[in-house]
């Protein structure tokens, strides 16, 4: 992640406390968060996360907007935009690291706080960790609903005969891909 090289001005608790995710979090905990995290800045069009690379950290966006996009068949698809006050790339904060499923590019000048799994581990027992994880849960819920809507629309369009039967433990090769699709949809319950 090529964060800008010049040292950005330090983040203050006053910048964090108005953010909705930190409502009710004591100032001394915000100060602790700031002291253990690196503050970073990005210029417009700078790549913040690149699709396919190791997801080992997230960002708390303090100012600016980013664009999230993915590439398929050599074409770029804009997935969404993320604005200040939200977490970004938070899958990199989960215990099971994955590769990035999308790229993130700065749309405007960005100021952010970089979070690592180590940071979250050091914040155990704090309200600030609870606030960050609740924010991660909300982001996951939004993505699950988007994915479920897409899967349901595919299901309604496809309507194969196999879909009228419940998935079985040992589907035939012909129906296994469809059963896997249905199971993935069903597991979103």
């Amino acid at each position, binding site marked *: 992640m090529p964060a800008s090289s010049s040292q950005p001005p330090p983040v203050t608790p006053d910048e964090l406390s108005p953010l909705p995710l930190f409502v009710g979090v004591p100032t001394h905990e915000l100060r602790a968060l700031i002291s253990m995290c690196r503050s970073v800045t990005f210029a417009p069009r700078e790549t913040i996360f690149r699709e396919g690379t190791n997801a080992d950290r997230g960002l708390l966006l303090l100012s600016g907007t980013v664009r999230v996009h993915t590439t398929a068949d050599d074409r770029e698809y804009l997935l969404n935009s993320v604005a200040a006050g939200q977490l970004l790339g938070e899958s990199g904060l989960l215990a099971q690291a994955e590769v990035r499923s999308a790229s993130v590019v700065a749309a405007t000048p960005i100021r952010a706080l970089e979070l690592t799994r180590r940071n979250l581990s050091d914040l155990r027992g704090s309200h600030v960790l609870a606030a960050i*994880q609740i924010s991660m849960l909300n982001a996951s819920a939004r993505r699950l609903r988007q994915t479920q809507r897409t899967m*349901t629309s*595919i299901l309604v369009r496809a309507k194969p005969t196999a879909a*009228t039967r419940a998935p079985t433990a040992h589907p035939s090769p012909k129906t296994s891909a469809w059963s896997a699709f249905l199971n*993935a949809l*069903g597991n979103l319950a």
Partner: protein
Amino acid sequence: MRQVGILRERAPDFARFWSRAERIDVPSGTVLLHEGSPGDALLFVYEGSVEVRIHSDGGSLTVARLPAPVLLGVTGAVDGELRTSTCIAETPTSALRMRRGVFLDAARQATPEAELVRELLLITMHRQLLAATARLRANL
């Protein structure tokens, strides 16, 4: 959920989190969650099996069968929006049911049990998302 190691290692914390939940024992055929109803509770099914159905073209379609242990209604409990599927007990089923307000209050605490459940839900949702995204890519 069987694959989530932290649950095996920290069962007492998990049980403590659910201490404010009500226990429900239902016969097979009981509707546990209704598609289209508000996400007003989180369910932890610890015994039995659940059929997941969604409405499609005026009928309903079975999309999964989930054996215990399984968490149901996670997304609705987090965001409070409408449920997107119906869950029916396939066998006599036992579960713990926690109202959304109680769940959110408990999940916001700076306690080991709240941290455990937040991590568990994050891992569960992340895996669901990965599995669903993989199927989507395969079907597009």
